[in-house]
Every structure is written in structure tokens, then in C-alpha cells.
């Protein structure tokens, strides 16, 4: 529970300006908070004096002055503590985001987006809440419980004894109740996750539910968990409903004791009426800080639990790391060599679904030896799951091979800085992803920020290469049209073409097209490939596909099966060989001719 204390203290140190502003202001506010009962006591005690009117005027003037000074410092108190908490939130969010950006692809394959989101929102909010409320209440209480007893003792030691005794058990009681409530609350959280699991299962399996007309049964099943949650909540409500009123009662009993015994002391002439009134007023003030103690504890517990969850992410190290002294030269020629590559996906996770699957427990790549001359165009073919995309993933270092090495221009890719390596490669991934931004921003995404002010005409060149200009010109905002849910609706093929132009705009020395025509029809694919001819010249290009349009462009073909390169050579060579490739070629030709029917 105290393991995160260091991090919290570090934050206090980092934002000490806000912390001290808040604390000093709070110090003054609390100090002044002690005075109103004293002023009132003063007024009451001098009721019988001759110059009572003057004294009364002084007392009231002092009172209003106190109130105004307090208001001033209350402002700074809030600005200090709230401001500090906001800065903590700002900083944690930035740190979390920056860290996530660096994590390797395998992290995202094993972590759900929802999980990351809940840490970035709920957990950061819980930590922030501690800096806003927890620390504030804690300091407030410490100050309050230092000032008030001193003054009470000064006013009347005996009455202080009467007043304090009935309250002594309260912090213990609050703590114990707090624990009980916390435990029941955790129970409720568990039922809530049961509800969430049940709902999630139902929504995922809705097709089965509907097919088997299980809606009614599902509803009654869902009702059962909800009734359970309802009952648990009532169980907590019993405690909750007791806790508050009982604290109120305790303070009330204390008032009872003070007025009764204090009254007797007044009657016996031991204390003045004003003193009794001051005691009464302090007791009315003290009720809130008493309850606050319990809140600090639960606040802190929540914040530490959330901090733990944040630390889990912060302590996840990127799996792909740069060499200590990386090569910082750009890749000029683009000669690629795979040497004895072995690879299995980590955690036996399926590359597509992130689910564990039987297929990927076998190695994804075995004994890959492949040399791709600079400037050549290579077509990698093979059935689904044969390891084609894995080859591309290794080349951009989404993963590192478990055995063997990859060289580009004779340098092991592990020795390049990630920036140089990835900066030299134009990668068009299989899954179409565009940002909810303008077309222009998306196409120029990989262009260095300094050069991003390129004219729209440059964008046009890139979108023209993928036959998109006609489509874009028809949009009302043209190249500044927003994509995504709120923007224009492009078809899958059109989006795919934009991802291609995004890669070309980078002017990379190596271009990887991973099955990037899957949503585009054959004619468009052919037209795009034709217009790309000039771009591909003098660029090492890896085209991963099982379609035939690229065959004519490729200087040679690599055919993969079950994670191995089974054949390589020119189209002619492989056709005469009548092996895997030739059979695949015939199959694909049939399929494509069928598509045309």
C-alpha cells in the first residue's frame, strides 16, 4: 500500500509551488477558522460591560475582516491544490501516452484497447483525485486537530476533557467502518464485472442467441446477476446508511455532554456562558473533519490501486530496442538479405485475431535465406498463413527474429536506429488504417514535419499515382476532406489506395506492399501498378500478394508455404518447374477468371 508513496511524494516535489501555495493558504484559512467562536465568545462575555457597544462593533468588524481574509486565502487554497492535481493529471497522461507510443506491437496484440483506455481515464482520474481531495483533507485535518484542542484546553481544560472523551473512538470507528465498506464495495465491483462479462458474452454471441431464440432466457439470466448486484448494493447501503447518521449522532451526543456538563459548570460559576457557546460552536465545526479521516483512507487506497495499474504499463519495456550506438546513415541502396531466419510469434498469439490458436504455435518462419538485390521488384506469393506478412513485419522490426539476422545494405537491421530503418521503408500494411484527419494530412503523414507544408499539388501527385484524384476532386472539401466517422465515407478500396499513396509520399528506398490491393478490383490494381512503374524503378520493392497483376512487374518471385521459402526464381523459371508456384498460378488464374464471369 505504501509502495507508491515515493511516486506521490515525487509529484509533490515536482509541483511544490502549487503544493506550498495550497498548504500555506490552507494553514491560514484553518487558523482563522478558529477565531469566529472566540469573537462570539468575546462579544457574549462583554454583554454587561459599559462600553459594550464599542466592543461589539470591534468584534463584528474583526469577524468580517476574518471572513474576508479567509475568502482570499480560500481562493489560493483551491487554486493550489486543484492546480496541483490538474498538473499531475496532465503529466501522467503525457507520460502514459509517450510510453505507449514506444511499446512494441506485441504489447498491443496482448492488451485490449479498452484496458489501455480505462487506465488512461479512470486510473489517472483516481490518482488525480488523491492530489485534489486526499492530500487536501489530510493536511486540513492535521491542522484542525492541532489548533482546536489547543484552544479548547486554553478555554477550559475540564470541559475539553468532557468534550474529547466521547469522540476518541471515532477515528477508529471510522477506519473500521471504512474497511468494511471498502470490502463490500469490492464485492460490488466484482458483481459489476460479472454483469459486464455477461453482457459482453451476450452481445458477442448475439447471432447464436437469436438463432436459438434464447432472448428470454438470456434476459432472465442477466436479471439474476443484476438482482445479485442489487442485493449486494443493499447490503452496502445498510452500512452506508448507518455510517453517516451514526457519525452525526456521535457529534450530537458530544454536544449533549458539553451543554449538559458545561451548563452545570456555568451554573456553578466555573466558566462563562461565552466559553460554553464557543465550545458548542467548535463542536459543530469539528464534525466534518472527523468524517474526512475515513475519506482520506479510501481515497488513498483507490489512488494506490490505480497507480499500480499505471505502473504496470510504465514498467512494460519495449521489446524492440535500438543498439547502443546505432548506425545513423540513411539506407541508400536497399539491398536486403534474410539469413537463416527463424521466428515464432510471442505468446502463441494469432497475428490476426490476437487469440491463441493452434496454427501459430508452430513457427511462423523457418530457415529463411533470401537475398533481394537493390532496386529490384520482388513478388512474395503463397497461401494465407504461409509467413509472407511476417517477413514484412520483421523487416520493419515490429518483431525481432528468434534466430538469424536481416541485413540491409550489409548492415544488420538491429544496428540501424529505428528512425533511420523505418524512415527508409515505405510500408503499406494489410489492415487499412487512416487517421480521423484530412486526406492531405493522411497522405503526408510520413513526410517530415518540417516538409509537411508541402502544397496540395504534391498531394495530388501521390493520390494521382493511386488513381484517386477523380474521387477526391468530387468531394466538397477536396484534399482537406476529413476522414473517419464524422468525415467523408470512402470505400475500403479507396482507403486502401490512400494508404498506398501515404507510403509513396515518404519517398522511401524500400517499399513494402503487404496485400494492399485486396479491396481494389483487378482493373484498378492493374492501372495503379502501371502508374507506379516509374516509382518502383530504382527502389527495392517487396510486393506481397496472391493476385497475379503484379507478376509482370516482378523481376523475381518468392513462393512461400508453411513459413518456408519453397521456390524462387523468375515467373518463367517457376512455371516450367511446374511446382507449387505453377499450381498456385493456375488456381489463381481460374479464380480471377471466375471473378470476371
Amino acid at each position, binding site marked *: 500500500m505504501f509502495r507508491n508513496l515515493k511516486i506521490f511524494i515525487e509529484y509533490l516535489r515536482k509541483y511544490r509551488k502549487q503544493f506550498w501555495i495550497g498548504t500555506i493558504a490552507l494553514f491560514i484559512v484553518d487558523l482563522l477558522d478558529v477565531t469566529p467562536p472566540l469573537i462570539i465568545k468575546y*462579544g457574549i462575555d462583554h*454583554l454587561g460591560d459599559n462600553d*459594550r457597544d464599542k466592543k461589539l462593533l470591534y468584534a*463584528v468588524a474583526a*469577524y468580517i475582516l*476574518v*471572513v*474576508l481574509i*479567509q*475568502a482570499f486565502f*480560500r*481562493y489560493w487554497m*483551491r*487554486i493550489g491544490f*486543484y*492546480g496541483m492535481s*490538474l*498538473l499531475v*493529471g496532465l503529466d501522467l*497522461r*503525457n507520460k502514459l*501516452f509517450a510510453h505507449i*507510443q514506444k511499446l512494441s506491437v506485441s504489447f498491443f496484440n496482448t492488451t485490449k*484497447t479498452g484496458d489501455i*483506455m480505462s487506465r488512461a*481515464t479512470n486510473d489517472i482520474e483516481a490518482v488525480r483525485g488523491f492530489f485534489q481531495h486526499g492530500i487536501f483533507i489530510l493536511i486540513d485535518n492535521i491542522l484542525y486537530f492541532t489548533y482546536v484542542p489547543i484552544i479548547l484546553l486554553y478555554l477550559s481544560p475540564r470541559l475539553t476533557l468532557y468534550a474529547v472523551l466521547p469522540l476518541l473512538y471515532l477515528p477508529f470507528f471510522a477506519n473500521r467502518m471504512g474497511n468494511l465498506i471498502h470490502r463490500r464495495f469490492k464485492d460490488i465491483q466484482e458483481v*459489476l464485472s460479472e*454483469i*459486464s462479462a455477461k453482457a*459482453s*458474452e*451476450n*452481445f458477442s*454471441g448475439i*447471432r447464436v442467441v437469436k*438463432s*436459438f431464440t*434464447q432472448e428470454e*432466457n438470456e434476459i*432472465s439470466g442477466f*436479471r439474476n446477476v443484476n*438482482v445479485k448486484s*442489487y442485493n449486494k448494493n443493499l447490503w452496502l*447501503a445498510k452500512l452506508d446508511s448507518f455510517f*453517516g*447518521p451514526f457519525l452525526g*449522532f456521535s457529534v450530537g451526543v458530544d454536544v*449533549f455532554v458539553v*451543554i449538559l456538563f458545561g*451548563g452545570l459548570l456555568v*451554573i456553578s460559576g466555573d466558566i462563562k456562558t461565552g466559553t460554553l457557546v464557543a465550545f*458548542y460552536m467548535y463542536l459543530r465545526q469539528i464534525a466534518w473533519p472527523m468524517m474526512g479521516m475515513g475519506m482520506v483512507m479510501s481515497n488513498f487506497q483507490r489512488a494506490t490501486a490505480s497507480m499500480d495499474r499505471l505502473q504496470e504499463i510504465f514498467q512494460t519495456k519495449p521489446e524492440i530496442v535500438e543498439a547502443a550506438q546505432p548506425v545513423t546513415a540513411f539506407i541508400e541502396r536497399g539491398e536486403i538479405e534474410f539469413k537463416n531466419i527463424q521466428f515464432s510469434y510471442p505468446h502463441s498469439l494469432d497475428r490476426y485475431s490476437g487469440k491463441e490458436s493452434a496454427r501459430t504455435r508452430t513457427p511462423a518462419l523457418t530457415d529463411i535465406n533470401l537475398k533481394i538485390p537493390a532496386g529490384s521488384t520482388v513478388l512474395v506469393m503463397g497461401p494465407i498463413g504461409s509467413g509472407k506478412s511476417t517477413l514484412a513485419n520483421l523487416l520493419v522490426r515490429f518483431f525481432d527474429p528468434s534466430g538469424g539476422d536481416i541485413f540491409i545494405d550489409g548492415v544488420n537491421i538491429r544496428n540501424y536506429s*529505428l528512425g533511420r530503418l523505418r524512415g527508409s521503408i515505405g510500408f503499406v500494411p494489410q489492415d487499412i*488504417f487512416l487517421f*480521423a484527419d484530412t486526406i492531405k494530412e493522411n497522405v503526408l*503523414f*510520413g513526410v517530415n*514535419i518540417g516538409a509537411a507544408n508541402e502544397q496540395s499539388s504534391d498531394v495530388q501527385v501521390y493520390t494521382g499515382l493511386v488513381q484517386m484524384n477523380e474521387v477526391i476532386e468530387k468531394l466538397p472539401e477536396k484534399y482537406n476532406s476529413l476522414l473517419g466517422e*464524422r468525415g467523408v465515407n470512402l470505400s475500403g478500396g479507396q482507403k486502401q489506395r490512400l494508404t498506398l499513396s501515404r507510403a509513396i509520399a515518404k519517398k522511401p528506398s524500400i517499399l513494402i506492399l503487404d496485400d494492399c490491393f485486396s479491396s481494389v478490383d483487378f482493373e484498378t490494381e492493374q492501372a495503379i501498378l502501371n502508374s507506379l512503374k516509374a516509382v518502383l524503378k530504382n527502389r527495392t520493392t517487396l510486393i506481397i500478394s496472391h493476385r497475379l497483376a503484379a507478376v509482370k512487374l516482378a523481376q523475381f518471385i518468392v513462393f512461400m508455404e508453411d513459413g518456408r521459402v519453397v521456390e524462387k526464381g523468375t515467373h518463367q523459371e517457376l512455371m516450367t518447374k511446374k511446382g507449387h508456384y505453377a499450381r498456385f498460378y493456375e488456381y489463381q488464374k*481460374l479464380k480471377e477468371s471466375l471473378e470476371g464471369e
Partner: protein
Amino acid sequence: MVDYQHEDEILGKAYDGRLMKRLLRYAFPYKWRLMMGIFLSLILTGIFIAGPLLIATAIDRGISRSDTLFVIMVMLMYLDSLILQMAINYINSYLLISLGQRIMLDLRMEVFTHLQKMSLNFFDHNPVGRLVTRVTSDIVALSDLLSMVIVAVINDIFLICGLTIAMLWINPRLALIPISSIPLALIVLFIFKPRLRNSYRLIRQRLARLNACIQESVAGIRVTQVFNQEERMMNKFKAFNQEHYDANYKAIIYFSVFMPLIAALSGISIGFLFYYGVGEVIRGVIKLGILIAFLDYARHFFSPIQDLTDKYSIFQGAMASAERIFRILDTEEEIKDSVAPKHLTICKGEITFDNVWFSYNNEVDVLKGISFTIKPGESVALVGMSGGGKTTIISLLSRFYDVKKGRILIDGVDIRDIPQSELRRQLGVVLQDVFLFSGNILENIRLNEQSISLDRVKDIAQYVNADKFIEKLPDDYLTKVEERGTTLSSGQRQLLSFARAMVFDPKILILDEATSAVDVETEYYIQEATSKLIKSMTSIIIAHRLSTIQNVNRILVMHKGEIREIGNHQELIAQKGIYYKLYQMQYL
């Protein structure tokens, strides 16, 4: 996908009011409980006001007259009032919390029940995570509103009214001092309220954008990394984060001015009250105890304003949740049962597609004028390339979607006239991707249908060859399986899915054969079960296995949304058309 960005639009004042009204409607069934709660709150306010008066009495008539016995008696009454207050407080709090919980239960059930009626099209467009959030976090936010804000509002209103009445009753002149500061407080409130509201909205919008940015960057992390744009994304995020901070900071400044201002106002009015009150005491108009009681009242007079302002953010969050929940409840189901339903008396199992057209997004037609009839007991295989419309045909037959044009008949009745539950009862559906629920094998076969006995499940499992593997499991039919379970192989899942379909005693079999490879033994069991099943009833199969294709009466070749060829295996091979090419592709 960009869930967070979508949900926050600027909501008008009238809008919050409308949402609130609609929420309160859920309390209507519990109006007596609510009335009771309000009544108890009223009593509590009374006791609360009586407390300082009792103490005033003790001071004025007991202590100042040195009447010890009177002090003791009055203070014992005070103690009684405390006990009464605690008891009623407990009952009231429990009553209102349980009321809130009850409403939450109702609301959550309503959302879930409503979702059960939504068509697959709805689920296609709403990610599971988003819907789960609706029935969990959003409902919880509403519960916070019900249990904290509403109770507080009721209490605060009673408190202000009660204090006003009490003070006016005890001493109208003295009462005028705190009461006259109320207009001042209201002016302050009206100056700040629109600003607070607007800055809260701004925070909400910017938070939504911030979260959308995180979500998008996670979804596009590969692209960002491979394009080396981590820094650009970071800068973009930092800007959003800073904007969010700025909006928050603005709100905090408003709050930091507003709250001390109200506190100061309260303090000043207490000061005047004291000054004037002491004068009254001196003039002998009131007693000292009454003045003390007045000071106490005045201190509480302003707390409702501060209290309600504090709860404003909870209120805002709950309104956003309410809006999202009602948006779901207001989405009407696309597929409805006919108002004048027709019933299938004895389902023979004749299926007719009559010039059926369909598209998922109103753009590309997936089915273009499909017509065919399957006679009772006949089995038909659908073959063709992916994207040809095979899966759509079986989705339409289950009425997961409605046809765009044309009609589908079962035993001569349009399926839109048959109640959905009755229609689907006739169909035994085996899907390619077998969904397993968390639970055991038995529950996964009979689902939640308790009326199906274990013996029947065992019989059916034996009939479809699923018993072979089930009996080898550690707890046979009671073995636990997980959602998206990994404990069963894909072949075993198919067999389980056969049993699941057959145990409901369907009249028509709909089978989407799985393509994944399974071991030789399981493959044999699957083939045997398949051929047994298709002989026993009207069957429509998306076929991948040659053995299945050869077993059916007829083959329909689907291509680009049309039926291009019909016949049996030999006939279609002889035709040398699409089927011939497909066949060649399969065996190249």
C-alpha cells in the same frame, strides 16, 4: 471506432431538463416509497431545526436561571431527538438508496431487453465494448445521480425552506438579515452558473477529444511506428491534453472565486446577524440562546448552495450517460414481428426465395433477384466463391435482416408474417465460427433451456457423434468451457454445435460448414453426422466438403449475388461452367 469523439455534442439547458424528466419517470412505479422518503426527509428537517432550539431553551431557561434540573430535562429531550434522528435517518437513507438501486435495476434490464430485440445490423455497427459500457458505467453514473444528487437536492430544498420558516417564526426581524442576503447569493449564482456550465461542457468535449486521440493512436500504432511519427502523435496529444487542462483550469478559477465568495457572503451575514442580534439581546427582545440558535441556522443557510455546486459535475456526467442510454432506448428495432402474425401449424419445411434482393449498406447489392424453392425434406448445397452471397442467404432465412425486395416463404407463409421466435424455432443453425458461452458442455448444448433433460442431450450428442469426445472430457457433460474457449478443438466445436442445433428439434437444418482442417477421426465423425442430418430434414448447406456436396439433392452455384447454375454434382461438372472451375480450384 472513434467512440469517444462521437458522444459529446453541446447539450442545451432544455435538453438536460428533458432528460431529467424522463429519468424521474422511472421513479414513478415507486412513488409511495418516494413519498415516504420525502415525508421522512421533512421530519428530519424538523428535528434538525429543533436541535438548536432545544439548546437555546437549555441556555435561556436553564443555565442562565441556574436551573440544573431543567437543563438536564431539556438535554435529555435533546438526546431523545438525536436517537430519533439517527433512526429516521437510517431508514430514510436506506429507503432512498434502495430506491435508486431499484431504478437502476429496472433501467439496466430495460436497456438489455431492448438490445435483445435489436437486429444484427445494429450489432454490426456498434462494437461490443461500447454496448457493455452502456449497461455498466453509464448506468452506474446514473445511480450516483439518483443516490447522491437527488437525495441531496430534496434535503437541501427542505433545509432552506425549513430554516426560513423557523427563523421567520422565531423572530421575523432577525430573520430578515440572513434572508436578505439570499438575493445577493442568487445574483452571484446567476453570474457564475452559465460560466460554470459552459466550462464543464468544454471540459467534457475536450476530454472526449483527448480520449478519442488515445484510442485512435492505439488503433493506428503500427502505422505511427512504421512511419516514425511518434513525435507528431505525441505533439498532437500534448496539444489536446493541454487544451483539456486549460479548460479545467478555467473551471477551477471560477470555482475558486465562487465558493469563497459564497462563504464570505455567509460569513458577512452572520456578522451582521451577530451585531444586530446582540443588540436585541441587550434590549431584551430575545434571549442569548435564541441568538446562538440563529447563528447556527444562518451557518447552514448557505450550505445547500455550496453543496449543490459541488455535485454539479456528478450531475453533468450523469446527464451525458443518460443521453447515451436513452439514445439506445430510442433506437427502434429494425426487424419487428407482424401485428397480424401467421402461425406455422405443422412445419413441413418448404423454403421458397422469391426474387430476393438485399444489400447491407444500401449501396452494393449482395443478392440480386434470387429465386429458388426447396421441397420438404430436400437438401440443397450452396457453393461459390466468398462474397458470392451464400452466408447472406442463411442470414436472411433466419430473418437476421429483412430483404430489400422480394420475399422468403416457409410452407408458403412469408417469414415476415411469422413471429421471429416461432420462425427460428424451426431452424437448426450450425455456424462456421462456433460461439461457446462460459459454462459447461451441457449448458452449451441446451443453452438456457432447462426443460431439455440431460438424457435428451446425451441422446442427441450420441446421434451426432459428439458423445465420443465429450465422454473423454474430465467431467464429461459438466466440463467447463470458456468464452472463445481454447479447450475444445475446432472439430469438437463443430460436433458440439451439431448437438446444440439438434437438441432443439428443428424442422430445417442450416449448416455453414467449417473450412478449418481437423484430424482424421473427427473429420470422419463430422462427415457421418452431416450425411445423417441432411437426410433427416430439409437442409440448406454452405458446403465445402466433397462428401457433403455429393450427398445433397441439388447444388445451387452462387456467384456475385446470383444463382448461376443448378444441378447435381455430375450435371454441373458436365456443364463446365463456374462449378467446374470451382471444383478444379479445390483440387488443384
